[in-house]
Every structure is written in C-alpha cells, then in structure tokens.
C-alpha cells in the first residue's frame, strides 16, 4: 500500500495505491488525519482508482474520516471507484453518505 497526497486549489487529494486491509488501515488513518487537521478548510478527496483490494477495514477507515470531517463541517468525496472496491462500497452504504465521482477532477470541482 502506498499513499500520496496532492494539493489542488480547494482540495487535498489522498491517492491510495494497492491493498486496504486491517494492516494498512491504521497507517491510512494516521496520515489522512494529519492532512485533515492541517487543512480543515479544504475538501478531502479519497482517490481509490489504484486500489486493488479492500475489505471492511477500508469501510471503517473511510467512515472514520467522514465522521471526523463532518465534525468540523468539512467536505469529503471519493473518486475512481473500480471493480475491486465497487461491490464492498455498494453493500457498505458509503454511497449514500459520501459523493462518488469518476475522476479526481470531478471530485475536486463538484
């Protein structure tokens, strides 16, 4: 698993590459939260386009970031849902609370 952060005009983009399981969820949480509290006014975009595997630990980490960001009135979005994560995102109900976009650009601009 590899994390890369980039800063767009009004958003912080966290791109996750590789597998999201219990082993990596803690690392994703810690690094994401550092960015979220440093740039609380920016939208937080989670780019899943390069994720090859995700289990319920991934659901936990995404919902955890959603709650943190909501707690100070911020915005969160997900981009790049592929076949490796589509089914689990669907069944988790995340689609009902976090907007999903095809590309990072769409997620940043909408």
């Amino acid at each position: 698993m590899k994390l890369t952060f980039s800063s767009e005009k009004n958003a912080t983009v966290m791109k996750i590459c590789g597998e999201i399981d219990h082993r990596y969820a803690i690392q994703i949480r810690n690094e994401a939260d550092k960015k979220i509290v440093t740039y609380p006014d920016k939208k937080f975009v989670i780019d899943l386009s390069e994720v090859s595997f995700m289990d319920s630990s991934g659901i936990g980490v995404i919902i955890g970031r959603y709650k943190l960001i909501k707690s100070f009135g911020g915005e969160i979005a997900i981009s790049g849902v592929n076949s490796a994560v589509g089914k689990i995102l669907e069944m988790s109900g995340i689609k009902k609370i976090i907007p999903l976009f095809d590309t990072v650009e769409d997620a940043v601009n909408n």
Partner: protein
Amino acid sequence: MNYSNTIKTSFISIPENESLARVICASFISQLDPTIEELTDVKTAVSEAVTNSIVHGYSSKGNGMIFMDCTIENECFTVEIKDNGKGIEDIEKAMEPMYTSCPEAERSGMGFTVMETFMDSVKVNSVVGVGTKVTMKKVIKSKLL
C-alpha cells in the same frame, strides 16, 4: 468429471498474514478458473475471517495460531478458518450488520455481513475461552470441469 483437492495451513496471528491468507486461497481456487469477481469475493471473505481471528480472537496480541483449511469438491470451494482465541459469547448478535465490540478502533461491524454477501454460505461455531471456527462455501462456476 470428479475432482477434489485439500490444503491445510497454519500461521501466526499477525496482520502481515492477512494478505498471505488471501493469496493462498486465490491460488488454490485458480485451478477452477474463477472469474475476477469470484476471486475478489473469496479474497474479501477470507480477509474478514482472518482479520477477526487476529483482532478479536487473539486481541491483536500476535501470539496465537490461525488454522486455514481449504477444500475443493468439484466446483464447490470450502474454507475453514479457526482460532483458539477468546471466542464469541453471542454469535447471533455478532453477526448482525453494524455490530462491533470495538467501535473505538473504527471497526464498522460489517465483517460477517461481507462474508455472508460474498460467499454462498457462512457457518460460525464458537465457544467462549476455547475459540472460533468460521466455515464458508462458494460454488465457483468454473468453465474447466
């Protein structure tokens, strides 16, 4: 054509072995030529059960053994994941969607729901203080047999 195969594995309860368990099962069923979706389903369900043994069964202490046995009987894949950990008091409650005994660790309580959604059947046996065994089955609609 009649076909059967069995493997028995055991490994210690550290998070590094979650991906190992997924890869073992994926390789094992690859002989049935599964679809990408079937592979993902099996990997996800196995990941849930193994993670539960590590996190809940052995309370993330990393000092227990996990036993994972896989069988193929024609097109039916069975995986049994067993720990000698703390066990589950109320299995019915544990299997409810969104129930988790450790929300503070950001667990979503979706593990058993994922297993039930992604496999054809899930059976849980557990005795407090003795351990937990999860048995899951899935028919792989193989083109090979």
